[in-house]
């Protein structure tokens, strides 16, 4: 198979919300003479994903991430534009499409609320027509990987958020879909649970070659999982490409944090392009320098520092995605 597994072109979605007419049979009257307010939530989004990619789909609240995911999964019909996922138009060929994809919405569950988790997994296997032996093997493997064992027999409504999310992830991946859509899968989880889920996601992508689209507000998820991100705002693509390149573009500076020996003073360094970072929150005896690695070699900076100071510790800080994204959102607000 060649060519992209997900193709999105000029995709748009408008929500038309009827304004309710008050009074008797108001519902009927709003149907017969409808008045609407329109909101263009997604406004001409285009991108393509190759099979096996793991992409972070990012943007501030209300950017249109979930709306895009809903069009990719076949829940919503686009107002305009093209979507093709594994060769199918999701909303038109819904059931065939459903067998190609797995979906997890962090905010709500896909599981049978009143049944034990075990029963939900069993039902999913049968509903998706997964061959019995294969289903048993996958269930056992996922139970182990996600640590589902202790609560397999607990009704889903009694599970904690983290337990439920792991259950949902297992359910979504049981039919071994080619594409997995994750809409905020780590929302509200503790560090350990997040790590477990990230591990699972990374493995599905690396080992099984599952194509994954992930939305999240936790940029650690992105740093840990994604090479590529698509950044959207107000329904439009702001950036599409490497995480590394994004950082170079928006946060080219590297930082060197110098911890001076007790009582030693700071005498400065005379290397062009190196300056003290005035945004840094330095502790006493600590100095943060910033420079652009494209013009200044790290080794030169370190040598210059060591030549003139007594130093107990040095650390080089890469720019974090957090700062980058913060800067982009802020710039957009100012524009």
């Amino acid at each position, binding site marked *: 198979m060649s060519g992209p597994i997900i193709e999105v072109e000029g995709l748009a979605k408008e929500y*038309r919300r009827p304004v309710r007419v008050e009074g008797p049979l108001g519902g009927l009257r*709003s*149907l017969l003479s409808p008045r609407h307010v329109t909101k263009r939530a997604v406004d001409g989004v285009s991108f393509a994903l190759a099979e096996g990619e793991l992409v972070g789909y990012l943007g501030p609240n209300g950017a249109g991430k979930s709306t895009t995911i809903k069009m990719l*999964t076949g829940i919503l019909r686009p107002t305009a534009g093209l979507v093709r996922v594994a060769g199918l138009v999701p909303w038109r060929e819904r059931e065939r499409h459903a067998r190609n994809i797995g979906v997890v919405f962090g905010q*709500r569950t896909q599981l049978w609320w009143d049944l034990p988790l075990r029963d939900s997994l069993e039902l999913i296997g049968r509903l998706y027509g*997964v061959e019995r032996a294969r289903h048993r093997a996958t269930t056992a493997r996922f139970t182990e990987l996600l640590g589902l064992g202790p609560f397999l027999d607990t009704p889903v409504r009694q599970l904690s958020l983290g337990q439920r999310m792991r259950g949902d992830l297992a359910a979504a991946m049981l039919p071994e*879909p080619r594409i997995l859509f994750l809409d905020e899968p780590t929302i509200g989880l503790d560090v350990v649970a997040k790590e477990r889920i990230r591990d699972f996601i990374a493995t599905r992508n690396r080992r099984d070659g599952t194509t994954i689209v992930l939305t999240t507000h936790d940029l650690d998820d992105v740093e840990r999982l994604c090479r590529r991100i698509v950044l959207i705002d107000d329904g439009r693509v702001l950036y599409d490409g490497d995480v590394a390149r994004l950082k170079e573009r928006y946060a080219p500076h590297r930082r060197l944090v110098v911890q001076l020996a007790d009582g030693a003073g700071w005498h400065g360094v005379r290397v062009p392009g190196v300056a003290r970072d005035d945004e840094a929150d330095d502790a006493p005896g600590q100095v943060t320098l910033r420079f652009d690695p494209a013009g200044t070699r790290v080794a030169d900076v370190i040598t210059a520092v060591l030549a003139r100071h007594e130093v107990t510790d040095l650390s080089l800080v890469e720019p974090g995605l957090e700062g980058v994204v913060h800067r982009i959102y802020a710039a957009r607000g100012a524009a």
Partner: protein
Amino acid sequence: MSAAHPIPRHRAYRLLVTAAFRAEFQYGGNLLLTLAGGVVAQSVGLVFLWTVTTRFGDLGGWPMAEIAFLYGMRLTSHGLLVVPTSQLHSLDLAIRTGEFDRYLVRPAGPLMQLLCRRVHLPTLGDLATGIVVLSLAAHHVGFEPTPTALLYLGLALVGGALVEGACQLAVASLSFRMLSNLALRGLIDDIMNTFGGYPLKAFPDTARLALTYLLPVAFVAYLPAGVLLDRADGLQITPWLAYGAPLAGPLLYAAAYLLWRAQLRHYSSSGT
């Protein structure tokens, strides 16, 4: 490659129904108790019927036993309908909470999944009461269980269920576009419940016509009951329409399903 394969619709249905029953009994649901509850609920209607017929003797020329037969037919049809489709009432809820999203990303029909989201056991009481009333009344009116009559009765019962179901499905479909249509749904259910089990001949002409052509209540039980009770001549309608009444159900249901499919495209999920 995905491990998923298509499965036949009837198997998907069986899986989902079984799951719904299991979930219901997880709550410690007691079949006998809820059944009894359903019967008691329906008995209110029966007491009313009994009061009306004993007070007036007959309605629109139909004696009490025949009205009971008609009433039993309508209640049985109603039972046949609501046992598998009670969850249609939860469509608003499923849309509002976003539960409906889930139906659209699974390899099964969304309507089927909605109807299987739970079972409502008291509806079995409606069905049981209907069958009891119909059987007793059949005995009293001297209904002759020839194969033809039984076949027509069976088709009429299923057809009646589908007529009521078509009305409910058509109105429910509007939920994809309207914020809420509970009032309209309630109105239709009320009309069906109030007039479905009585001889429409007893009502003024405008009401009778509205209940035949506007909201097809007459096709639920009145017309086929008239045929079975040899009253086809007094139905004030072309005989072929009366005899063909059981066909109205499948036709109307097919139309309602097309409307459902068309409205489904307007589904806009929910914010979160």
